[in-house]
């Protein structure tokens, strides 16, 4: 594990070179372990891809002879050791990973780029839907805008570049493909991913805690629904 400074109030713990299954599990567990310490002066913990970034308030650590960056690094190292020790136990890894199913109505007005993606991938639209809704995904990170999940696990046959000109407005719930990732727009926002469908689920609910339906590390499946079922959800 490498520990790098991110400016004067962040430490990045690098757990691997890529966001593979094992690394994502360790990222999720390290983030949870650091959160569980409830250490004062730790403002934010951001699991994303193969890294956990810890945001700290230097004024809470400085003075009294301690150096803030080093203190936070020690905390992360201690937490990482606890995660490692636990993973050595039987049934250590993988506990508590959530599985979330997302209903999606593909194509038509909900997926205006489905035909285009089919052409780019040299597949029939039905094959795009079939492959997209049968793959197993994992949330690599939440970002871009609040609540936007970046999902890894998109079959290579569905990889499609972003639009050269982003849309000025993408409807909430739109499911898109951006390169090797797929994702869901949590609310209406500009966006450049190719839209293949829409979910009736509200994936960002600012009045609830937590506000996001998904968290980094969650497993995700998509289930194809028709317009009638979409309407029934809304």
């Amino acid at each position: 594990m490498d520990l790098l400074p991110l400016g004067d109030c962040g430490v990045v713990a690098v757990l691997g070179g890529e966001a593979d299954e094992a690394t994502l599990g360790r990222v999720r567990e390290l983030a949870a372990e650091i959160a569980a310490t409830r250490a004062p002066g730790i403002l934010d913990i951001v699991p994303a891809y193969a890294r956990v970034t810890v945001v700290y308030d230097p004024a809470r650590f400085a003075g009294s002879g301690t150096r803030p960056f080093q203190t936070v690094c020690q905390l992360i190292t201690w937490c990482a050791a606890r995660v490692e020790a636990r993973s050595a136990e039987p049934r250590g890894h993988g506990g508590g990973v959530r599985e979330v199913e997302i209903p999606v109505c593909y194509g038509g007005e909900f997926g205006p780029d489905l035909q285009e993606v089919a052409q780019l991938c040299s597949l029939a639209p039905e094959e795009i839907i079939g492959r997209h809704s049968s793959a197993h995904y994992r949330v690599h990170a939440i970002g871009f805008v609040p609540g936007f999940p970046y999902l890894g696990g998109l079959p290579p046959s569905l990889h499609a570049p972003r639009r050269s000109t982003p849309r000025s407005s993408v409807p909430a719930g739109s499911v898109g493909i951006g390169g090797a990732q797929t994702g869901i727009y949590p609310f209406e926002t500009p966006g450049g991913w190719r839209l293949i469908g829409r979910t009736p689920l509200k994936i960002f609910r600012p009045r609830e805690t937590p506000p996001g339906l998904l968290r980094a590390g969650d497993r995700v499946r998509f289930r194809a629904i028709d317009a009638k079922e979409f309407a029934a959800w809304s």
Partner: protein
Amino acid sequence: MELKVMRPGMLTTVQDLGRPGMRAEGIPAGGAMDAPALRIANLLVGNEECAAGLEVTLVGPEIEFAAETLIAFGGAEFESIPNWRPFRMRAGERLHMGPAVRGCRGYMAVAGGIAVETVLGGRGTHLQAGIGGLEGRALRAGDVLPTPQASRKVIGRWHLDERILPEYGDSPVVRIVRGAHERELGNALLTESFTVTNQSDRMGIRLEAAAPMRSAEPAALSGAVLPGSIQLPPDGQPIVLMADAQTLGGYPLIGHVIGPDLALLAQVRAGDKVTFREVSLDEAHALALARDKAIGLLRHGLAEKFA
């Protein structure tokens, strides 16, 4: 008690010191762009530093006060509005702010704070997600903001020692610590001066170099970015991320503005010149601690000055 927005100004939002702890949800902390200005203005009316006030941008609003109200301004300077000292508005009186004469963002603290609803741990407005503040948006004419404890009184005569304030200016020297890509990119960031463009906003201060800087390939995987992170997109023109910036980024990071100097960037306008100077992480932390101690002393000094 309440205050009424007669004219909203260019971009006026309710802001506090942000909602930390939400970056894993993709939600930036947000809050006042010039946090020390809001903290100090709040202390000058007897508030907690984190109380919600108004952030006004370049052209201020016109506000009517329903009842006698103690307020204080900090940050950008507006003609005929006293900065950095508490003063009283009478019931029914209107405050017309007009354009800023120096700086970009002014802060109006109101005794007792502005009692908008807390959303996800903060009262600040995050415009992109439409949360916080008043209905998650900038203020409009006719808006009414609740100010439940506005009639506080100042005890005795005193004034702020202005040495506590950030060293504002229209060509600030902004201190940075190194980024992960510094070696590949050379030291152009430290030798050139940069012009602030009019594309700058609460998400980022966009700078223009005389000649575009040489950028590196975007990272294979996006990573967390923070206010102060300096991104270099492929066009070679750096962006300093600010309070409402997105939480993840894939562009090379060529440096990071230190926390205490974000206030200086909150006050620059299009056309202003910015230069950067490197400090060590230890120096950056010493400066953060010094700022915090100074504001702590002010808080202590003002503890018995209000009734």
